């Protein structure tokens, strides 16, 4: 176990060292977050009304609702993107086959490559929320940070399975990320990102209930905006963990199968 943690740390510190060579990009992300937060603030000011606030599940301002929806969708985006982007970069740089001949196991290589991108996304979310709280009155004081952390972890696990499925697709077919296209497309309409799913027609609400994003956002808003404890988020949390329990092992099995196919076809390093 300690060896695995040490190996995961190696991947994280590798990616951190690479990221440190792009310092300006790091600063630009902070500025970009300021503009993004400001945009949601002014959209909120433009559309907010007592009637709208009543329609929101946790009440409060539309700014807080939409900012949480936007930044946590970034988390899903990162989950769907991270695995296949790491894989593609490793393939293009020629490091993939050198990783695969080390004594480190495939699941550790896959998980290790995702740690830094997830940490960077968490940092980016923190910057958005910090700008929101500092300049635009985002109600950070209401948050229950323990449940926020648990929801983040459950979200990460649930979405990682989809990301690993994308990476498997990339191994075999070399281009494209259909899981990302589908999930982002679905979630922008039926995920509760910018409006509550309760306003959708029935058939779209059914689709939203099959989408892990809906549960992740429900739980995150409850924890962050209403300070809900575990009793307030157990249902969406259980669904997220169920998604994770099904998707993670099955996606790892599919990834191992896809890797085996590339070892048969000799296309591991092809792009």
């Amino acid at each position, binding site marked *: 176990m300690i*060896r695995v943690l*040490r*190996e995961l740390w*190696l991947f994280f510190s*590798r990616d951190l*060292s*690479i990221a440190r*060579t792009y310092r300006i990009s790091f600063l630009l992300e902070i500025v970009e977050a300021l503009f993004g937060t400001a945009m949601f603030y002014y959209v909120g000011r433009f559309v907010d009304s007592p009637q709208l606030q009543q329609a929101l599940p946790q009440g409060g301002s539309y700014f807080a609702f939409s900012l949480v929806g936007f930044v946590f969708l970034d988390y899903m985006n990162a989950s769907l993107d991270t695995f296949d982007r790491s894989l593609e970069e490793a393939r293009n*740089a*020629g*490091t993939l*086959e*050198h*990783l*695969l*001949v*080390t*004594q*480190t*196991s495939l699941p550790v290589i896959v998980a290790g490559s995702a740690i830094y991108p997830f940490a960077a996304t968490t940092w980016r979310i923190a910057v958005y929320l910090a700008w929101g709280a500092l300049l635009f009155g985002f109600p950070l004081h209401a948050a229950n940070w323990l449940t926020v952390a648990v929801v983040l972890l459950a979200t990460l696990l649930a979405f990682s399975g989809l990301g690993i499925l994308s990476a498997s697709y990339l191994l*075999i*077919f*070399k281009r494209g990320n259909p899981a990302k296209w589908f999930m982002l497309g679905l979630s922008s309409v039926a995920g509760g990102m910018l409006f509550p799913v309760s306003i959708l027609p029935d058939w779209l609400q059914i689709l939203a209930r099959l989408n892990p994003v809906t549960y992740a956002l429900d739980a995150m808003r409850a924890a962050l905006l209403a300070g809900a404890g575990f009793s307030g988020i157990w249902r969406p949390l259980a669904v997220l963990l169920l998604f994770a329990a099904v998707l993670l092992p099955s996606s790892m099995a599919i990834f191992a199968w896809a890797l*085996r*196919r*590339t*070892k*048969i*076809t*000799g*296309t*591991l390093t092809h792009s």
Partner: protein
Amino acid sequence: MTEAAIAVDSLEKSFPPARSGWRAFVQPFEKPTVVALSGVSFEVREGEALALVGANGAGKSTLLRILATLLLPSRGSARIAGHDAAREARAVRRRLGYHAGTDHGFYARLTGRENLRFFGRLNHLSSVAANLRIAQLAEQFQLGEMLDRQVRTLSSGTVQRLSLARALLHQPRVLLLDEPTRSLDAIAAMDFRRFLKKQILRRGDTSLLFASHTLPEVELLADRIAIIDKGRLIACDSLSALKHRTAAATLEDAFLRLTGRTPHSSQEDAPE
């Protein structure tokens, strides 16, 4: 009787035809038709150096990649220290150092040292042991201050040396080198051969299987030479035995006679 360091038995490898566009979707599921290796069998004893010699596309790299667990054979077996490369990949990798013959495969924005440390640690070297080995190999490969520069700023020859150092980091018992001196200048190549001969092979505990087009390199390093042509092993013997068998004066002549090539027809493909 001691177990062979490398044992290849009736090895066959075929690939499905290359496809592009929408046909690429069916490629992973198509029947293999392109034969890369056919019925290859040989052994490499502990401490022995075996050279793979053959024209481009003969199947040398495919063979090395199967042994490195990067490809699965279609039939037959490839074993490293008794472990099957297809079924016991992790046990095989513990004993293996692999150099792919390319001058990439590093993180361009990390320094050479950071790269070596990363791969050394993934091969379960402790931090202290990794630093020690990096220092030893840096001296051996004359990497000097290059080690602390980002890989993207290094010449291809230096990256090649770095790649060879990576293959040797964890002191593997079996070394697989695909054209190890391809991007090296004449002096660096000579130094590397001398290093392999004196520091690695003379110890007698490391086996070497390498592919090369440079015949003087093959003559210097190899105890035996395997000649591969169109995926078939057509000879595997010592240099003197190959010359004797073909009544040839040089390895080049022996190669040409064994493969039935003439110097004119093989100008592009044959070893130098």
